[in-house]
């Protein structure tokens, strides 16, 4: 279990920018998605969790072990957004080096690497150079690298950025197979990723945690409050006087908008609709 308590972070400098404020978060086993728009503080929070940045105040711990401790590092794995490791290395060589640098040794060394190669389906690729591997295979090497050292907590920074939907699904299938039973935190912008795997959601806005909890509850938090209305382009400009405007879809010259009325009477004549993930996301981004 990972706990983050009272974490705030300000970049030093003449005019320090506060990126995170009063973050309290507890990560239990399962998949937690860290969502939020660009600049909301996701990457900074992950850097603090991996020990790349030092928070100064507050505490980050895994099972009571503080960040910065060698034992903490052993229990944590990190997968960066771009997994472009040295292309001249062979897959097996790269995994050997990673295992060695993570402190895996002795009899466990070969057994663990062999097991992970098998689990991630890399058996046929282990003698290939990384530069000869496809993007999908490289992602699997990334997953394999995070599994080495048997960490308890895994942090992934936008792992599906820049890959097509087919590879994305394959990636998450492997993630689900390999990381079940571990504490996994995945930062993403892709809403479909959240829907595919999430047990919990943590949402950052302007450096503050605006939602932290069960994904199903997050998904249904707007049930019964969202209405659908249609208007033309000129109508779009006046909508915000009466509604919080959520997702908008254009069909021909007509716009179909999902809205939440600002007062009860404004809902008169509107048709209630089931909110989608984009609605929930936009609601928390704009109003909370």
């Amino acid at each position, binding site marked *: 279990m990972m706990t983050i308590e009272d974490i705030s972070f300000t970049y030093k400098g003449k005019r320090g920018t506060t990126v995170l404020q009063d973050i309290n978060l507890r990560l239990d086993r399962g998949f937690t998605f860290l969502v939020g728009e660009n600049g909301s503080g996701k990457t900074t929070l992950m850097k603090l969790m991996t020990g790349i940045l030092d928070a100064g105040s507050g505490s980050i711990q895994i099972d009571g072990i503080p960040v910065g401790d060698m034992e903490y590092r052993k229990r944590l794995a990190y997968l*960066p957004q771009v997994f472009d490791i040295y292309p001249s290395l062979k897959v097996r*060589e790269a995994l050997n080096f990673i295992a060695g*640098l993570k402190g895996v040794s002795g009899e466990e060394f070969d057994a663990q690497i062999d097991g992970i190669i098998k689990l991630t389906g890399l058996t046929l690729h282990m003698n290939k150079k990384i530069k000869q591997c496809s993007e999908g295979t490289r992602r699997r090497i990334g997953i394999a*690298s995070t599994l080495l050292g048997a960490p308890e907590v895994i942090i992934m920074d936008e792992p599906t950025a820049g890959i097509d939907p087919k590879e994305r699904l394959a990636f998450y299938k492997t993630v689900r197979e390999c990381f079940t039973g571990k504490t996994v935190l995945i930062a993403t912008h892709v809403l479909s990723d959240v829907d595919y795997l999430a047990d919990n959601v943590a949402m950052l806005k302007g450096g503050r945690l605006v939602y932290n909890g069960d994904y199903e509850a997050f998904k249904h938090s707007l049930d019964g409050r969202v209405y659908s209305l249609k208007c033309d382009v000129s109508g779009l400009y006046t909508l915000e006087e009466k509604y919080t405007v959520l997702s908008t879809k254009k069909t021909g010259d007509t716009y179909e908008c999902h809205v939440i009325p600002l007062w009860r009477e404004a809902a008169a004549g509107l048709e209630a609709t089931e909110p989608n993930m984009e609605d929930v996301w936009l609601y928390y981004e704009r109003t909370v």
Partner: protein
Amino acid sequence: MSAKLFKLYFKLIFSSLIFWLYLLFISGFFCLFTVCIGVTGGDYSFLLLETFVYLEVAVAIFSFCLAVYFIRQRDTLEKVCLIPETKCRAIKVVSLIIASSIICLLPLIYCSVIAVSQQVGFSYCFMTIVFYCARWLEIIILMETMGSLLGYIVKSPFIYLLVLPIVIIFSFLNQYFFQALSSIAEFPEWTKTLISIQNMYVDGMAVDYAVPRLNLLFLSKLIAILAFSTLLLYLLYFAVSKKRRASQSVCMLEGFFSERTENGTTYYSAKYGAIGDDLEKEYESSMTFDHWNYKTMTRTDEPYPSPNKVFQIYYFYDTRGYSMLFGNYMMVHHFTKY
């Protein structure tokens, strides 16, 4: 962990085509050099060892470029293992220096072969070998720490061209540089020898026999160069640890500016030309419009933060009159439509 990092870097260096090209080029130059000695000198003797200085320029150039290439390799593998970047960079530079020092075998082999063929005394031969190996090593250390630091800080590929002025200044070639400057100012002899890796502090008289000069002057220079390289390595460490605050780009504004400070914000505007305009009114007016997001090149109506410095630029082209924010800096179209 450090031993495993060394192992990784040696593996990467020795399996790299660039490194083998480095060895090949220097060996090639060395062969060319020995042929030239044969043509000009007639025999491959100790008498002509001083002509190594020309070959050492090639060593310096290739060492610098090699360091730039290696320091720029991405370190994702190390990040995955949560190894601090400062440690990775330092070990990478040291590994590269150790691997590159293989080329010290060239003067060693050359001197040994000639010593045998000319029946030179052991101690003299040994001193000569130590002298040239140490000098080549100091060239490698200085050029590779410098290449690593500059290659890390300067992102442009043109950094490779920087090797030319650096090698000119830090080698015996600096005498030509100072000669070119002699019309402006006269530099004393010691300034040339002080910054040259090849010369000693006090240049000895050119005599017609080669002496290894393995003396205190040489050793003090060696220590000074090692100290300077350590300083460069520390600067690299500093740059890596502080990079999150470092700017990735530089914008140069040239001209004559007037300067005024209000509420902690400094405003710069053209000093001459359109000074009749009401700059304060223009600035206030520009705050009522949208501004450009320089990353996406789209207009945004997000609220203006309070910028640290404001540059009011007369006809700020390509922004259609809208302002642009770069962190704490703001560029405002001067002569706007208030």
